[in-house]
């Protein structure tokens, strides 16, 4: 069967599964809609959390980034996993004990303040909407490349599917769908990795293959270092991302940001108990780690395969443009791969020197998708990868949409504007706000803003500099009062926004960046994407300073903190 038929078959089958699950897991109450009734098994919840967390960025982009940044790409690997350690120990169990439906609800209870709740809702919506836009774009691109339908048809199909199971099932439907999506995603990611690892090193386990010898007796990583350095690129296993300081702060920002992202935190409201919340964080990380420890192998092997397909030890034997393989032609059509015959010899020369390099564009995002084709794997493997990429984008989009919808219906509507609303009405409004959120996300999918990539920095920066410190202080400091928390959140977001905007432009309009986006102007050489950790430090400092000069926390709030610290009262 040809690739397109196979892809239609695989993608169609997975969509049928998602719709089937949606019928089976309809939500009847607000508790089922927001937190799946609070009875999901920790392993199942861990799997759903993993699917929720791993977006199109993890599935499609991450290995591509590592392939080109080498060791410098480690910030994503450590940063996007280490946050779960913080979640498991500093947030999840206590938030579960408190038993709220949403993150702003906890902040409002703990800081006895509707202002704090509204500030939290704003941070949450900005962070989540940014993320959803990225997923929608991923859905459109995956469809247009693999099903050869146009971008808009792909996007609308994706929107309809998400709308169907998320609106109908709420958290309950999303959780069970995400479990199915995790399975599809992980199969799609590991099968090509196993094939390629076996072909290159004879070891089918990618994590071990990356540290193994190739047929000629040299270690794969040594070989890769040697190949890329000969061609004038930086050494793969040691190239740092700017500086050690920058990598340190970047990793910390991603970890704190992970622990502060509302759609991830919400997942721990769905388990039975405090004990289950702790374990569930562990299971989530197990399921994430399967993909995250495979990614470095995919990255290094894809890079090696790409370089050795094009460049030969003797440059006169380099791949001739006329003989380029089918994958090369396919990706050229998308504009993500470009060749320019600078020296007119008809041969492709892919080297580190910018002037001589003839591969003028190799988009990093194509690496994972093109990898099986470059390695010459069978068509059905490529079709599975397409279904996996869609599963990654859909599962994350659904989780984010729920976070947005619940903060509108539960926090703003029921919490602030109309406290007397009935459960049935609230459920109706949460479904309506979800449809609204899907339409807004779809609008941006059709008109992707230029700043979509830049705003990911903002999403993590916001979560790291506002939500995480507010939650952590709410649990670990009985004395933290509402004045301190609100001042902390505002100054944390404020300084992060200022730093991102001054280098990347106000609201990401490039011409308004008054300091320019280049490293000599960066504070301690820290790139804007990595600034969340600094924002968090400012948040903590300001909060404690303001707390020391304002009114004490009411006694009943202190009692509440005592209460969330223990799993059950004795």
């Amino acid at each position, binding site marked *: 069967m040809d690739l397109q038929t196979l892809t239609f078959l695989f993608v169609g089958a997975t969509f049928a599964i998602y719709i089937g699950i949606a019928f089976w897991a309809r939500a009847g109450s607000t508790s089922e809609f927001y937190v799946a009734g609070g009875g999901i098994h920790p392993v199942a919840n861990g799997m759903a959390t993993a699917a929720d967390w791993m977006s199109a960025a993890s599935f499609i982009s991450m290995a591509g980034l590592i392939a080109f940044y080498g060791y410098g790409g480690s910030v994503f690997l450590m940063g996007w996993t280490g946050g779960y350690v913080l979640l498991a120990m500093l947030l999840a169990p206590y938030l579960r004990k408190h038993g709220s439906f949403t993150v702003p609800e906890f902040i409002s209870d703990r800081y006895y303040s509707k202002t704090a709740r509204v500030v939290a809702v704003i941070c949450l919506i900005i962070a989540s909407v940014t993320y959803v836009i990225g997923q929608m774009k991923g859905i459109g691109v995956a469809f247009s490349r693999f099903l050869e339908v146009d971008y808009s048809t792909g996007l609308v199909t994706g929107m309809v599917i998400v709308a169907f199971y998320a609106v109908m099932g709420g958290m309950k439907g999303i959780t069970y769908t995400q479990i199915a999506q995790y399975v599809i995603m992980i199969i799609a990611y590991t099968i090509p990795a196993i094939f390629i690892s076996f072909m290159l090193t004879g070891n089918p386990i990618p994590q071990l293959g990356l540290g193994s010898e190739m047929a000629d007796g040299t270690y794969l990583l040594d070989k890769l270092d040697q190949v890329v350095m000969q061609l004038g690129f930086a050494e793969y296993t040691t190239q740092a991302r700017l500086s050690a300081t920058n990598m340190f702060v970047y990793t910390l920002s991603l970890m704190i940001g992970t622990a502060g992202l509302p759609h991830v935190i919400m997942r721990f409201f769905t388990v039975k108990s405090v004990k289950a919340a702790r374990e569930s964080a562990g299971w989530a990380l197990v399921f994430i780690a399967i993909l995250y420890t495979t990614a470095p192998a995919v990255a290094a092997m894809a890079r090696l395969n790409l370089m050795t397909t094009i460049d030969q030890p003797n440059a006169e034997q380099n791949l001739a443009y006329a003989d380029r393989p089918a994958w090369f032609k396919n990706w050229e059509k998308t504009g993500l791969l470009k060749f320019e015959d600078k020296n007119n010899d008809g041969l492709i020369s892919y080297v580190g020197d910018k002037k001589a390099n003839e591969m003028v564009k190799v988009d990093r995002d194509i690496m994972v998708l093109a990898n099986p084709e470059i390695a010459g794997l069978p068509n059905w493997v490529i079709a599975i990868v397409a279904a996996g990429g869609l599963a990654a984008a859909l599962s994350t989009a659904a989780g984010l949409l729920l976070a947005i919808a619940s903060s509108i219906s539960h926090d703003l509507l029921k919490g602030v504007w109309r406290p007397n609303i009935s459960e049935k009405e609230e459920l109706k409004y949460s479904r309506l706000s979800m449809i609204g959120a899907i339409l807004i996300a779809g609008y941006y999918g059709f008109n992707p803003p230029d700043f979509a990539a830049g705003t990911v920095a903002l999403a993590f920066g916001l979560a790291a500099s506002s939500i995480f410190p507010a939650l952590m202080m709410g649990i670990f400091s009985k004395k933290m009062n509402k004045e301190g928390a609100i001042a902390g959140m505002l100054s944390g977001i404020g300084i992060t926004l200022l730093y991102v905007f001054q280098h990347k432009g106000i609201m990401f309009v490039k011409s308004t960046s008054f300091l320019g986006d280049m490293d000599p102007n960066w504070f301690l050489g820290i790139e804007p994407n990595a600034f969340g950790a600094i924002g968090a430090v400012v948040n903590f400092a300001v909060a404690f300073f303001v707390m020391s000069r304002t009114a004490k926390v009411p006694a009943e709030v202190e009692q509440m903190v005592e209460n969330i610290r*223990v799993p059950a009262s004795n």
Partner: protein
Amino acid sequence: MTNNNYWKANIALIIKCLTIWFVVSYLFGIVFVDALNTIKLGGYKLGFWFAQQGSIYTFVILIFYYAKSMGKIDKEFGVDEK
């Protein structure tokens, strides 16, 4: 007072776990990476291995260790969920 001691035990455990968390990722993976890279683990340079593999495995173990130890501490102080 039981709750107070329970909380102290929890904090002590968290500090222990987060110290290991910090050492494997920030120290082994970033600060001392060059020194560790002189040692080899199969085809991996050790610092590189910690940054791209080892830290992640350690994180997983840490969470389960914390969950299990907290389970014991919960029981010891009689605050476990029945």
